[in-house]
């Protein structure tokens, strides 16, 4: 079992590179991930997402009304 107990400096990085590559999965390395492309969004999915955004906008307005009423009542 090999543990790297050195502090995080460049020398430590060079010494342990092989060991790090052996221990971690390739896509666990912070700078060597597989690049995932965009998901092809269907019309239905786009509609769903925009519908949800409209929902959020409406709910923010309703929350605003609730806050206004509560603060007004408090005053």
């Amino acid at each position, binding site marked *: *079992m*090999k*543990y*790297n107990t050195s502090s*995080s400096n460049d020398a*430590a*990085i060079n010494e*342990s*590179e092989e*060991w*790090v*590559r052996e*221990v*971690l*999965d390739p*896509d*666990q*390395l*912070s*700078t*060597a*991930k*597989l*690049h*995932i*492309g*965009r*998901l092809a*969004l269907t019309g239905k*999915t786009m509609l*769903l*997402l925009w519908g*949800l*955004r409209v*929902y*959020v906008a*409406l*709910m*923010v307005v*309703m*929350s605003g*009304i*609730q*806050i206004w009423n*509560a*603060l007004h009542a*408090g005053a």
Partner: protein
Amino acid sequence: MEQVISNDITTEDIKRARDRSNVRTARTQGGGRSLNLLWLLIGPGILVMLGENDGPSMISYAQTGATYGVGFFIPFILLTFAMAYVVQEMTVRLGAATKRGHAELIHERFGRFWGFFSLADLMFLNFLTLVTEFIAIRAGLGFFGVPPAVAVLGGFLAVAAVTLSQRYWTWERITLGFATFNLIFVPVALMTHPSAGQIAHSCLTWAPIPGGVNATFLLLIMSNIGATVTPWMLFFQQSAVVDKGLTSADLKHGQVDTAAGAVLAATAAICTVLATATLYNHHVKASSFQGAEFAQALVPFLGTLAGKLFAVGIFEAGLVAAITISASSAYAFGEVSGGAHSLNSNLREGWPIYAVLTVAAGIAAALVLIPHAPLVFIVLIVNVIAVLAMPPAIVFLILLVNDREVMGEHASGRMSNFLGITVTVILVLAGLIYGVTTIFPQLLKV
């Protein structure tokens, strides 16, 4: 998929490799069921659940107990944590299978617009929530006579100190240590000598609901949902799973971790309701109480120790949530901006996320010291807003967890989708009911 090859090994990789090396050793020496392996792999699930038992949540539970006693809300809280498990388990699979945080995955799969939109949603809500955590820190320590400025500054320094350890493992273990104090509500509940029969009856009948269904009842329903299932949890747990280095081989332990977190958090939540049910039983009007006032109100009935424990619990709830929620913002910012997004990063590599984390916490802490702010209302409304913001977040989650191109064999099956969609429908309905009753409050006065 296009592979980007790089020869760079960062300090983040080295630290994660140490953690993974320990896991590999434990698995080799003790087998898949060893306690040591479990100890090494738990963390994100327990932290996310106990983190969500935050200041506003504990005050919501306290309000619930003081307003309705032991009844409908006991099984309802169990249901909300079951919902939380369904949602959070998906983030474990996503993180372990894709090795990407939630914001990063939305950004990559749905494009920059949705990535930044989700990030903005999260950062705004997290900031509001952070304010409420510092309110809890102030309230909890205020019970012991600590001046507000000292309490808030101390809380901020604790958040900064834990995070700036620059080591995920250290951050996780210290935060877990703090989070165990969430169970301090258990002895407070035991001091009330709760009736097992009454609790069992409430679980079987979902009753009583004193006063029936009215605006207060609906607000507490929303607050309790908001106390259990919120957007930051999705972003935090997935990013923490990735930062911890969990892989597909660790999925079972990730699920156990999440289930354990749900059980512990539900226990603390129900014990808070049981504790403040004392106030309901003694007809104490607690509708405008803050955290410390609950602690003080319990003293005449349960003694000074109960009040002190309750106050410590409120302080702990705020502190742990401030640590985890600010980490969630920092992770998401790093993931979408393309910079370092690991608590294993050193200050040179990860300064942007550490800056986001400490600046957000610092501003939130400062705001709490503004005189005459309507603190109780802010605390309750944050949970409600969190519920309203949840449906879009969970829809992205379900789309991603069904994305077989990145999830492979770990994509959701029929049962998981059924449960996930059911939870989404419940959350959307809760939001709609809240919205309709806000515009037409007379509907509740029949």
